[in-house]
């Protein structure tokens, strides 16, 4: 952990992760299970592409009208007896929560899983006030005990195997617990039961907030969020301002997309919709309920055509599970609260942290697996490129790379210069070519040739060879069949009618 904190670049943190066999094995094991689960669940559902498009449309519409829906939500929630607060910054949100805790003379807060809480560093703020803060999601509980941060959006302790978890929990138990998942979960369940009964405040995140009713909806598998929202007298919900959807009808689409994308489940074990504090006829529920709606950099994306879609994210984690980079380096290497492809874009976007953009955005091969996995089709692979471009535009580019790319432009804008460069390569490579290939690890070859062999340039490039080849082809060219000709003419017609959208797909 301390070594990780010292490693200041993605590259340095990735190196630590790459040398941690336990971590790599654990992350690989779980992400593979999750992504194959998602694959099965989505194909079993059928028409997955249509569902994705519906989800995307709902999110696009909501974010485009976010002011309207936020207002509607706040008014309805207030009418339900909820105290609604707006916080521009993370610090403001923490302040609001602390004031509530102070007023309630709270000694203990129980929490269900919330990435926003992690983003605000809520636990350390409450603990500084002397308030005991207990995470009740199993994974969150483990990393809280270990003094770490979550390394995955939905599986916080994904980087730990059961033996490591047994060690962490054994310290609390005061005896060595068996590294058996049933035993470990049983221990935590018993332990947390006491905390639920004692707690003064229950604190949750929010998966979706329904504008038309002022309800907030939680998806979970352990039942802990239900305990957190029913047992303590006061409840505080932390909610990113973009969590809104218009109606319960839209929730149906989200409830189809989220669990399947996250864990491959058709539905989570628990789905709670909470509409205000306890009413007289209710058997349980908090007497007082607060919702803190948090901006903290989110509104910076509104009106930005390249990044507004980031607010469509429903935090399912599917992009992490699909990402080959994440699989090898885990979540901590990304250095922010949010990891994986979504984190690589969200962290710099929320922080407006230009100088660090490149560093995080470079940790991607732009393979597009994140986009393909995303249930609301956020083009993360394109956003990563936009981040890189913005960094360059704002003058934070790397000097050597700047010069190199300038050279690239100069050479590539003229076929003559390009051909001359290829000829120079054909001649110059003689210094390093042995047996038709390059194995030298000197200078710029080091990165590539540490695990690869580089091919040499053949004597003739294609363009050097083309003339002779073309003469031979022309001499023996067969006549085009009428079938081929008519197919090509049809294709020409299609091309003319086609109005390709930006970044659109190919000729399917």
């Amino acid at each position, binding site marked *: 952990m301390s070594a990780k904190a010292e490693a200041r670049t993605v590259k340095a943190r990735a190196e630590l992760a790459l040398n941690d066999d336990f971590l790599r094995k654990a992350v690989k094991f779980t992400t593979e299970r999750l992504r194959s689960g998602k694959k099965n669940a989505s194909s079993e559902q059928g028409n997955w592409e249509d569902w994705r498009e519906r989800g995307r449309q709902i999110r696009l519409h909501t974010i485009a009208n976010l002011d309207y829906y936020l207002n509607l939500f706040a008014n309805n929630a207030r009418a339900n007896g909820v105290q609604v607060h707006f916080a521009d910054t993370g610090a403001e949100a923490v302040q609001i929560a602390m004031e509530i805790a102070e007023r309630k003379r709270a000694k203990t807060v129980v929490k269900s899983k919330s990435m926003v809480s992690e983003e605000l560093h809520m636990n350390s703020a409450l603990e500084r006030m002397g308030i005991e803060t207990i995470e009740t999601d199993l994974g969150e509980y483990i990393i809280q005990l270990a003094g770490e941060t979550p390394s995955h959006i939905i599986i916080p302790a994904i980087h730990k195997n059961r033996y490591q978890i047994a060690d962490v929990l054994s310290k609390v138990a005061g005896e060595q617990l068996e590294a058996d998942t049933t035993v470990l979960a049983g221990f935590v369940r018993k332990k947390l039961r006491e905390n639920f009964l004692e707690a003064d405040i229950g604190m949750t995140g929010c998966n979706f907030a329904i504008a038309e009713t002022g309800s907030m909806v939680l998806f979970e598998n352990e039942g802990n969020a239900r305990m957190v929202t029913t047992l303590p007298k006061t409840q505080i919900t932390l909610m990113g301002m973009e969590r809104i959807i218009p109606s319960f009808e839209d929730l149906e689409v989200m409830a189809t997309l989220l669990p399947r994308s996250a864990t491959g489940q058709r539905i989570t074990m628990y789905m709670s919709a909470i509409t205000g504090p306890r009413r007289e006829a209710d058997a349980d529920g908090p007497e007082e309920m607060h919702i803190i709606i948090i901006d903290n950099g989110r509104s910076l994306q509104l009106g930005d055509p390249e990044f507004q879609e980031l607010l469509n994210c429903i935090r399912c984690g599917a992009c992490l599970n699909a990402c080959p980079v994440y699989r090898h380096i885990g979540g901590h290497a990304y250095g922010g609260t949010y990891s994986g492809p979504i984190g690589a874009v969200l962290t710099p976007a929320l922080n407006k942290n230009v100088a660090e953009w490149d560093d995080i955005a470079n940790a991607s091969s732009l393979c597009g697996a994140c986009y393909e996995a995303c249930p609301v089709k956020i083009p993360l692979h394109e956003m990563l490129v936009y981040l890189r471009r913005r960094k360059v535009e704002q003058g934070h580019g790397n000097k050597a790379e700047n010069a190199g790319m300038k050279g690239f432009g100069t050479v590539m804008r003229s076929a003559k210069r390009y051909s001359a460069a290829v000829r120079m390569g054909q001649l110059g490579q003689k210094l390093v070519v042995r047996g038709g290939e390059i194995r030298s690890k000197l200078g710029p070859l080091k990165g590539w040739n540490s695990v690869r062999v580089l091919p040499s340039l053949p004597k003739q490039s294609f363009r050097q060879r083309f003339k002779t080849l*073309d003469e031979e082809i022309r001499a023996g060219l067969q006549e085009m069949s009428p079938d081929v000709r008519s197919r090509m003419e049809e294709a020409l017609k299609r091309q003319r009618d086609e109005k390709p959208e930006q*970044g659109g797909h190919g000729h399917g």
Partner: protein
Amino acid sequence: MKVSLFITCLSDAIYPRVGEAMVRLLARHGIRLEFPEIQTCCGQPAFNSGYWDAARESAATILRAFDDSDFVISPSGSCTGMIHHYPKLFEHDSVLLEKARKLQAKSYEFTQFLVNVLGVADIGATFPHKVTYHPSCHGSRLLGVKDEPMTLLDNVKELELVPLPFAEDCCGFGGTFAVKMADISAAMVSEKADHVKETEAEVLVGLDMACLMNIGGNLRYRNEPVRVMHLAELLAEGAGLL
């Protein structure tokens, strides 16, 4: 009808045999692939690194080279995919934007053209080897080229196609990513090569020489005797054209 070859810089300089295979295969169907010499690189290395001015300089040669072509065929889903980014790259220049849109509509990855336009499913090739196929990310995800290579491979006689485990996972090339994030890239390519090895295939085939250079480079480094080739080469060889 003018059918042009967009050779891509990598195939031009390092893998000219791929271009030759395409020329010979299409000639069989009466198509003379024409080669505009003013083309250079699609500009992707600069584009993906955030240097869009440099990318535009390079991309402009592609716009010019294929201005009067009816079809533009490349041996790379990634470089054809880059053409799909041109409308964004030239969004502030109305003249070039129009050209970019036209170019996008007439650009095809090689198997797209062969199967979807020409309707060729069987090239009449025989290739008596155990082969596995790596679907490159940009071709399969961004262009949607998934069934076309499978159709072509299924029709090659005596070819035994073995599925590649986790085939859709990126090989770790990613252009400058392989250099900037060399350790992560190394982990990815090693995993990919492990999967290739698991198949016990004699030949690894694909549609993008950059990815194949990456995987092949790692297999060679480990002295694994797997032959790595572009699908156009395999088909041309199997049809006795190369």
